[in-house]
């Protein structure tokens, strides 16, 4: 069995609404020491993601008046908990992104259930023994 996303993802995601001010989004990141915030609409569905780099777009603007909807990245890259980890990592490398939003494989599909972050993966690489990183796990009896 290949290692799956669910084994290394973080359950739950930090979210804000479309009308949250950028000042507040920046504060959410700093307080939680994260580099992403998932933006949700009124139905709690994913509308986009704001990364630390996308906040830079708002530099020089009034941060209380600029809203999450003005700078969010609408094409959020998502995956499911049962995706093989190797595939998810390939996607992160290809797109050069540090976070994948995890959505449930069952409806409602558009709600964030977790986050897979590059920093959690690197921590896993730092702490694991060599065999943990191979994509095929040894069958245990």
């Amino acid at each position, binding site marked *: 069995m290949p290692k799956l996303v669910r084994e290394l993802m973080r359950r739950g995601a930090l979210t804000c609404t479309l009308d949250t001010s950028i000042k507040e989004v920046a504060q959410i990141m700093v307080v939680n020491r994260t580099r992403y915030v998932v933006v949700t609409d009124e139905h709690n569905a994913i509308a986009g993601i704001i990364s630390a780099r996308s906040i830079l777009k708002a530099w020089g603007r009034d941060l209380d008046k600029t809203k999450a909807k003005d700078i969010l990245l609408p094409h959020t890259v998502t995956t499911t908990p049962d995706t093989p980890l190797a595939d998810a990592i390939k996607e992160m490398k290809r797109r050069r992104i540090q976070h994948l939003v995890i959505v449930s494989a069952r409806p409602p599909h558009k709600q964030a259930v977790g986050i897979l972050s590059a920093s959690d993966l690197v921590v896993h690489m*730092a702490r694991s023994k060599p065999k943990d990183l191979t994509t095929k796990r040894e069958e245990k009896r």
Partner: protein
Amino acid sequence: MTRVREVMHRGVITCHLQTPIKEVAQIMDANRIRSVVVTDDEGAVCGIVSLISILKAWGKDLTKITAEDILQPYTVTISPESPIEEAIKLLQKKRIEHLVIVSPEGRRAVGILTTFDVVQHMAGMQAGTYRSSIDWKD
């Protein structure tokens, strides 16, 4: 006008070109950082290893791959005296998360500026002060 030196971190955490990736990942884990500056024998900056570059080694033997194999070469320079706007433009244009601040003489790293440092500046928060700067009451 805000200058780079007001927002950047002074000092950087470095590794050598020949440091195995396993060790680089451990340096990141222990220091809770997302990039390590790679230097040569003379201590001059050669490049930077980021989270994404470490992920390239996923599934491989991490003790055999060295920082030299996966580093992003160091090409973008900025001075501590530059306006922060210039640094922000570079971070956006190059789609990078970190800018190494290098001393004019000898290419030694004197500091690092990350997108998160800029976000922290925009949030109006300095490290460790966020408890008092947010009004927790309704």
